[in-house]
């Protein structure tokens, strides 16, 4: 079933929003995502900035002026709401599968 844009987040998108719960530059976001995912998720600069543009358009993040040299970003209230929804959705998936996984394991 097709999903609306930003209705569910892909794995890289989820980690980028997680990372932007604090104010970060572009290169810092890439490092933070690697750190949060224990080096499992690597985001390239092209993917990152394309994603950031989409988040900005959807109002999930905003630009800040941490430095004059380069742009920084932070999550907005709307972004936090989307992040919480995604977290709840993922948690539901885990919970729904727990009982069955116990039997399988």
């Amino acid at each position, binding site marked *: 079933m097709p999903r609306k844009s930003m209705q569910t987040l892909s794995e890289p998108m989820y980690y980028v929003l997680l990372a932007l719960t604090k104010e970060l530059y572009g290169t810092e976001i890439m490092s933070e995502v690697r750190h949060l995912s224990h080096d499992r998720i690597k985001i390239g600069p*092209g993917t990152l900035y394309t994603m950031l543009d989409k988040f900005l358009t959807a109002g999930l993040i905003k630009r800040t002026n941490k430095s004059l040299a380069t742009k920084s970003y932070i999550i907005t209230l709307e972004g936090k709401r989307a992040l919480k929804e995604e977290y709840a959705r993922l948690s539901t998936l885990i919970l729904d599968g727990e009982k069955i996984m116990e039997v399988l394991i």
Partner: protein
Amino acid sequence: MIFGKKNKDEVKEVFNFNYTDLSAIEEYLTLKEKEGLRLKEIDGEKMIFKKAEPRENIRYCAEIYVGSSGDDFLYSCQQEGWTHCGTYRGELYIFRTLQRDATDIMTDEELKMKTIRKRALLRPGNISCFILIFLRIFRFIMDVDMGLNESDIEYWLWWIVIGIFAFSPIFILTDYFFWLMRAKGALRQGEKVKYLSLKGVKARRLTEAIAFLVFCFASLAFVCIADVGQCEDYGVTYWLIIAFIGLAIFSLLSQFKTKTVYGKAVKILTLILVIEGVLFGTYMSVKVSRQHFESTAKIYNTINIPFSLSDLGYDEKDCTDKCMAHNITRFAQHYFYSSDYEAEGAENAPPEEYDENNEYMSYEVFVSDYPHIREKYINEKLKTYEKYGYEIKALDSSETLWDICYRETDEEGEDRWAGFAVKGNTIFFTDIMVDTKGENLFETAYEKLFEKE
């Protein structure tokens, strides 16, 4: 294609790739690197290479980025070990790196595919071609509304012109949709999206060049075979198609010999092509409407005939003698009147009202190099006689024979004849009213005056 050298350490080439050819671009730049040519920058439509010592472990990456953070994007790429080589049209970025473990610039397949999907379709070159094709088709539809139809050579010439300008965009679009189908299929399967390799790009270019050459030759053959007459716009069409054939041949040959310099010749050809295209398009656009024949034909009526029967290949004295013998005062320059008609100045003026006791003849001479216009003239003339129930007979417009096509009616017991005689590009139309005695002046006069060769 090699355009020529700015200085001996630089080589310029045309950027001849689509946005779906990212793998091909990377392969090509890697090959160039091995040949000792390193991409220095992209200037407009040109890639500028500089001579450099080849490096084996260099890796190139071509990606599309259309966001608003271009500077930050470049900075981040640099931080990840990528050196920016050049940008094509502000959205296709090319990087290189010596680091084997440098993070890929685009790591999300779906996001990458969606970005390319949109940009590949909206490339400025495609848009200008689509606008041009749309304008041509719009003009074509207007001409059809004004009477242009399948029997006109111009109808088919318009399709050839539209086809020539639409050829490349159609190829690009076809290639694009095939790629899109494969990309969506790969994403559904959880696989990596494939972009056309250098081999695939060469095969596509070769196919396009051959197909275009075949199309141009077919167009030229059609123009040669069709009944084109001696008109200037057909001459322009010949040159336009021949120029396109030349371009297609160079394009085809350049697929095989990348080191040979075809650039200057292609430049000249392209310039000739553009100039011809503009002239041809302008000429066709201002061409007279099919409803009016002024610029494409001349109508001579009984008042202003500038030439005599001898100009049409007839002996005027002989015709005049024959006219006199049948009570016809003069021929080819005035109306005929019977000897009973004695109005002042009648010899030079048409009768204001028909007198059933008079016999008179009027005529027109129509000249056009277009067969379809000659037919239209005849059909337009015949329309005025529709109310009399005229029947159409076959018209032979061969170059060597006069032939007659006439109609008759029996309305109120009156015979009225309208006759066409056609020789080459000249139509002779006569409208005879015969008197109620039934004497067929037209038929008699015609038999006497126009003997079949």
